[in-house]
């Protein structure tokens, strides 16, 4: 579960990125976070992943109070999250399997756990036949599937996807979104940041719209119809 209570964030250059944001995401939800560039979407993601600290307000992520989290606890908090990026961020010199193994190694998984979990997750994202390929040998959609598999491999409570379809064509984008929906149905909470109106409208999910550092709408089952926010 994520709770942002009156969250404010000012950067050193004086920019006020967030001006009193209140947001609650319960376990098992699928939430789209939408808004124009510079609205504060990325700041929310960075706050949730503890890359930056809030300037004011209270922030709880999966049982961790990020207002006074100790640096040593941050890795353990991050293990409750899986993060997917627009540019995939795969390690180019490792195979698909090695990219997943590496993520499991990073959290201290045993070789036995790795041998069991990696094929299962690759099968889930439809890449069971491509585990020995290098990322450069895969299409954009397949690379994003590897990134999803990596986010999923440590069985996180929540997956945060930052513009996951930004580099993909509409067909591949739809496939990726359907995959994320399936992962959500299996019990993982999803927070998807996106610009893509058609894609958001295609799925009847909760949509949180943010503009100028403030949440301007939050409707469960709502649609992303406000043209000014694109």
């Amino acid at each position, binding site marked *: 579960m994520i709770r942002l209570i009156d969250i404010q964030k000012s950067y050193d250059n004086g920019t006020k990125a967030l001006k009193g944001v209140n947001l609650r995401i319960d376990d098992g939800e699928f939430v789209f976070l939408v808004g124009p560039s510079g609205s504060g979407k990325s700041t929310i993601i960075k706050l949730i*992943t503890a890359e930056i600290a809030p300037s004011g307000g209270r922030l709880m992520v999966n049982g961790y109070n990020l207002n006074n989290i100790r640096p040593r606890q941050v890795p353990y908090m991050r293990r409750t999250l899986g993060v997917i990026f627009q540019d995939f961020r795969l390690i180019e010199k490792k195979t698909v399997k090695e990219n997943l193994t*590496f993520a499991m190694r990073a959290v201290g998984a045993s070789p036995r756990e790795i041998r069991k979990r990696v094929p299962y997750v690759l099968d889930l994202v439809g890449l069971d036949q491509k585990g020995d390929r290098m990322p450069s040998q895969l299409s954009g959609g397949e690379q994003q599937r590897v990134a999803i598999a990596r986010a999923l491999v440590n069985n996180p409570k929540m997956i945060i996807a930052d513009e996951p379809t930004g580099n993909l064509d509409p067909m591949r984008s739809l496939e990726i979104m359907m995959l994320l929906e399936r992962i959500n149905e299996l019990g993982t909470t999803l927070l998807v940041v996106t610009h893509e109106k058609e894609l958001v409208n295609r799925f009847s999910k909760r949509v949180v719209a943010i503009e100028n550092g403030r949440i301007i709408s939050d409707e469960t089952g709502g649609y992303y119809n406000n043209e000014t926010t694109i």
Partner: protein
Amino acid sequence: MRQRYDFGYFLSEGFHSIFTHGFMSFAAVCMIVCCLLIMGSFTLVAVNAESMFSDLEAENQFTAYIDETIPQDEARALQDDIEAVPNVSRAEFVTKEQAQEDFEARYEGNELFEGLPADTYRDRFHIYLDDISLLAETEAAVKEVAGVADTQSAPEIAEGFTVIRNIAGAVAVILVVILLAVSLFIIANTIKLATFNRREEIAIMKMCGATNAFVRWPFVFEGLILGLVGAVVAFFLQWGIYVLVGNAISGEDTISLITVLPFQPMALRVLGVFVLTGFVIGAGGSLAAIRKFLQV
């Protein structure tokens, strides 16, 4: 999942990454080899200079004249008393007849010193010292030995040696420290350059929930391996260069006064110092280089 530290994995990751980032690894090893060679060569020159100073110092001596009323047998027997004085390495007895011969040989052709009566000279000891800087104290102690009438020394030569040795020692220490600092700086920057390409990799590891220790260990092992490889390569190159330069100096007539110490007796120590320095600069450079990238 509980955290476990699998050092076999860290070692294999460190080893693997040397090959996957081959060019940067090669550059880091080259830097380590160059720095160790420069430091090693300079240190070996300093060791040889120190050895030559010691040899020259060992030649430095003062003379103790024995009371002329003491018969020659008794004078010779004073050798044990003199050698018992602290800092005296050995005492060499010279009879007055030998002294006269030596003196006349030295001033051959000089009429002033010809035909001097034998009783002008006295029995004497040439006294050699362990530490030339303690000449004055040792000379005073020898003067206290019963039967020694007088002593004669050249304290300015001893002081000259002491000053040169102190300056050479200080210069050697300062230069080695400067070279070590410059080497660390260059190597840390070379490794930083190598690590810069991997900042994305580190960021991904951190985002997956890796602890700083988990990220650091493969880099430490990589640095240790690069340091070890650099040290071994530098050791053999150093050996070759030393032998080549040593042979060139030995074969040169004009500088035959310079004696070069053999490398073999020093080899183990040189290898030990190179490996230790290689480890320190390899692992230290890696740690310094990734510090910045861990702040994710």
